[in-house]
């Protein structure tokens, strides 16, 4: 039997406004080569000036991953040639990363796993190249050149492809939560590479490492690792030897293939970046960054279940979207019963949002309004059907639910004599359904309730309608 050791290397684009060493915008979607300047084009004579927020994001990411933050650090040049690397070197961090010796915890099939974080460092992104095979040309766009990245490297603590996927999900959730990166793997703001080796179970030596690059999706990560585990296991158990290679995941053929062997490995000639000065992260700066980190998802989920009585499933759903969780907490803080609020948020409100393709932040119905609506529902002032019907309107208009209900006369009818009139009319208008009821078809009652609700334009309190109908119909039978 063999066991697997996987280490992951993840690059995240940080969501600063400007690039890491110049003032160019980091926005997506600009015309090609329209967000570049002498610095991020690497024009001769240009010099980098470090973006403070990029450093703070790297510090926050390190803290959120339980890393030690370097009190003193610096930048280094990583020298290699590539057409999308404008200076012939990448400004990165070599021997003094901003964060080191951290860990991340996450659940895999109900079991808590801890994976060590070896380092978190800040560096710059390259431009983007597009290959035109037919024209035998490569085309370059430098809008992404100089966008800040953090590189997060784990210890080889990951044991399976499923764990690798869970690690990436947990990492993404944390980074989105602390708002340092939007972590969109398909758009390239999150990029994953894996190191993988297998060894006989119980052996203490790791086998030969293989690097896998070019993985473009979470599913791709899992598949590539599964493929690689299988490939290496088969190779070793048939007496073969795993060669040290860098391999690439071929998404269309669902296999890994050789990119380069160890012999062609890079010699990056790292040395301290002389165009930048030392970076000192003192306690007051560190504490300021720490104070800006919100409660992290895992802790928040546990608190929802433990203190607010939310089901683990709902807690998961709420916490998965930081803005929604924030909204939920606001509503709960105003005294709304958390379970009720969670139900409404996750089903009805979320449906409205999807239909209107709105983010929760854009909704006009804020926490106080939503809370008011919950009070209207739980006190019986309006029926839940009414509440559902008007939610769409409230989300867009932002008027107070109570005022809206009053203005539109939507308050639930609980006056028995009023409802009785509708009940009598319904019985009179629907002889066939009444006949069905009489022969014992229980479903007929529901249909009659529907008729009454329609006649009352939804305002009759369903429980009362039910009672009155039963009374009347049964009376008639006597």
């Amino acid at each position, binding site marked *: 039997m063999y066991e697997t050791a996987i280490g992951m290397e993840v690059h995240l684009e940080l969501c*600063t*406004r*400007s690039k890491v060493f*110049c*003032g*160019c*915008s980091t926005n997506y979607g600009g*015309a*090609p*080569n*329209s*967000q*570049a*300047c*002498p610095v991020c*084009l690497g*024009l001769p004579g240009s010099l980098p*000036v*470090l*973006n*403070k*927020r*990029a*450093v703070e994001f790297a510090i926050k990411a390190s803290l959120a991953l339980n890393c030690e933050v370097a009190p003193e650090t610096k930048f280094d040049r990583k020298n290699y*040639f590539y*057409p999308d690397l404008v200076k012939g070197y990448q400004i990165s961090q070599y021997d003094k990363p901003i964060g080191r010796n951290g860990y991340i915890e996450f659940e895999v099939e109900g079991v808590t796993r801890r994976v060590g974080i070896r380092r978190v460092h800040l560096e710059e992104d390259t431009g983007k*190249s*597009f*290959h*035109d*095979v037919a*024209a*035998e*040309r*490569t*085309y*370059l*766009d*430098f809008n992404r050149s100089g966008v800040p990245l953090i590189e997060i490297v784990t210890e080889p603590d990951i044991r399976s492809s499923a764990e690798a996927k869970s690690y990436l999900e947990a990492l993404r959730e944390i980074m989105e939560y602390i708002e340092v990166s939007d972590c969109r793997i398909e758009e390239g703001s999150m990029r994953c590479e894996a190191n993988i080796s297998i060894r006989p179970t119980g052996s203490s030596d790791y086998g030969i490492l293989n690097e896998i690059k*070019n993985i473009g999706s979470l599913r791709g990560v899992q598949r590539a690792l599964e493929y690689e585990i299988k490939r290496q296991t088969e190779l070793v158990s048939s007496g073969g030897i795993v060669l040290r290679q860098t391999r690439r995941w071929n998404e269309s053929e669902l296999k890994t293939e050789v*990119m380069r062997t160890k012999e062609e490995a890079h*010699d990056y*000639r790292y*040395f*301290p970046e*002389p165009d*930048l*000065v*030392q*970076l*000192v992260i003192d306690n007051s700066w560190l504490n300021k960054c720490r104070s800006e980190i919100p409660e992290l998802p895992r802790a928040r989920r546990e608190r929802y279940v433990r203190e607010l009585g939310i089901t683990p499933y709902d807690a998961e759903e709420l916490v998965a979207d930081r803005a929604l969780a924030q909204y939920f907490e606001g509503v709960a803080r105003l005294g709304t019963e958390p379970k009720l609020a969670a139900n409404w948020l996750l089903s009805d409100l979320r449906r409205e949002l999807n239909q209107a393709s709105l983010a929760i932040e854009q909704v006009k119905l804020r926490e106080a309004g939503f809370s008011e609506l919950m009070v209207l529902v739980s006190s019986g002032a309006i029926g839940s059907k009414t509440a559902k019907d008007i939610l769409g309107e409230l989300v867009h208009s932002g008027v107070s639910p109570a005022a809206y209900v009053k203005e539109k006369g939507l308050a639930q009818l609980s006056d028995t004599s009023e409802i009785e009139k509708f009940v009598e009319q319904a019985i009179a208008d629907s002889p066939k359904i009444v006949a069905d009821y009489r022969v014992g078809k229980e479903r007929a009652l529901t249909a009659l309730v529907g008729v009454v609700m329609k006649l009352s334009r939804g305002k009759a309190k369903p429980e009362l309608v039910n009672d009155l109908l039963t009374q009347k119909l049964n009376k008639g039978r006597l």
Partner: protein
Amino acid sequence: MRLTPEQVQKVAELARLQLSLDERERYAEQLSAVLGYFNMLNSLDTVNVSPTSHALMLKNVLREDQVRPSLSQQQVMSLAPELSGELVAIPRTFEG
């Protein structure tokens, strides 16, 4: 420290320079002479000396995260030796 033409060739590859056989020989000789001169540094005991990468002791030079105007696309494109639409063009890249 003597550099062989083969070592010169390896360094040239790292630096993305193509050298003729002739140049390899000549550079091997010239660089060996210079490297030989460097050996005098070995006579200095620097065990307890910390390195100076900068004569300057500035720290934490940072800028606020503010967007400033970029060059115009036209300016960027006008520098490039070959264009394709709004992109800089080069011969095809093998690795992808």
